[in-house]
């Protein structure tokens, strides 16, 4: 079996591993590091359940090779236990019923956080399009969209909001 040594940073920790080149980043995180927040919903890049951050940008964990993450920074939902914006999102998702079965939720949260921080989205229609790469089968998106809007408002209204992202 072909293996490659890799070194990368996962959720703020340096890790070294020996992986099969064919192993996806999502599979490595789940099986190699027991970080199971990253869910696999389709394994061909469509559903968004495996969304994680690579060097701070949302990417599909299922079609990113672990070997290609060599030297890079990877963050999964597990990195955001204390994150102020993520906690606003958590509160809003719960308040607005933005989740039912919970399977798409980690990907949704990471995408939602990126949408709010990047400030690319103004209208409700744009928010829907920005979220179109994350499929939820349970909620019909209503609660998710309300939650993201509410969290965004709270984030923008926070003290010292003008000083930039956290």
């Amino acid at each position, binding site marked *: *079996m*072909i293996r*490659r040594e890799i070194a990368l940073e996962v959720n703020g920790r340096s890790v070294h591993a020996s992986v*099969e*080149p*064919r192993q*996806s980043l999502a*599979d490595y995180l789940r099986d190699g590091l027991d970080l199971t927040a990253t869910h696999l919903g389709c*394994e*061909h*890049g469509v559903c*968004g359940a495996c*969304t994680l951050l*690579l060097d701070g*940008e*949302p*990417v*599909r964990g*299922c*079609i*990113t*090779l672990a*070997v*290609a993450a*060599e030297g890079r920074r990877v963050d999964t939902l597990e990195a955001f236990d204390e994150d102020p914006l993520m906690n606003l999102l958590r509160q809003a998702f719960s308040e607005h019923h933005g989740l039912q079965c919970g399977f798409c939720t980690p990907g949704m949260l990471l*995408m939602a956080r*990126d949408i709010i921080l990047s400030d690319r989205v103004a209208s409700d229609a744009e928010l829907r*399009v*920005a979220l*179109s*790469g*994350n499929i939820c089968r349970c909620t019909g998106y209503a609660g998710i969209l309300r939650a993201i809007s509410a969290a965004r408002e709270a984030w923008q209204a926070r003290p010292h909001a003008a000083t930039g992202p956290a």
Partner: protein
Amino acid sequence: MKPAPFDYAAARDLDHALALFGEAEGEAKYIAGGQTLGPMLNLRLSQPDRLIDLGRIDALRDARSEGDRVVFGAGVRHAEIEDGLLPDPSGGLMPQAAARLAYRAIRNRGTLGGSLVHADPAAEWPNILLALDATVHLRGLAGAREVRLGDFQLGYLTTDLAPDEIVASISIPVLGPTARWGYHKLCRQPGEFAQSLAVTVVFGPGRVRCVLGCAGPVPLLLKAVSALAGGVSGWRDDVRTEIAAALETDLSAAGIAVDAVDLRAHAATVARSMKDALA
């Protein structure tokens, strides 16, 4: 849904990539953003023996103005175009198209060159860059060459690229200040594959390139439609029937048969792209 085993090597630069290709046993394949190849590997539709990763070659990430052209490294990502971080030769066409290409998480990884090499006639870049009259610059074991995009796309998911060759850069003429464009994509949901995709670029008086995707195996440069658009001054709604007729001429010249339903849809997207370009 896991890939068959393969070996992997990351290339430092283009010469290293070609060297890795030259020494590989079995089938070697380049990977850049991996947003198309990734799913194909997972589905085992592609089973190479070795992947050569172009993702770490800095030179491929470059974009610069060179005279009246902008030269994009093939590894430029859709999201960089979307965010307006790079010089734009297209007067806003490329950023607008990029913003509706798949999803943000895909756009963060997927590359301009990768899209051209995949050569899907329903994809944005093969069509839009054909309308913009782009040229691709290739590097291979035998040296470098350049090919007009119209000659690069040979068939459905097929290009003029030899197995060892790499798209190094894409050069696109800068539209003049009076140039106009229109772009219309028919797809069932944002980010999904297009069912029809039309782009019309008016370079100047009488100089129009109108391209239609999804109708044939490759993006189609519509000569009769382009001539029609070049011959009218401004948009009139009654030109729609002429567009439909010109489109039929172009499709039959290309030996492409579409049914009445598809013809109506393609005529609509072509007309809308032309309307936006001429209005």
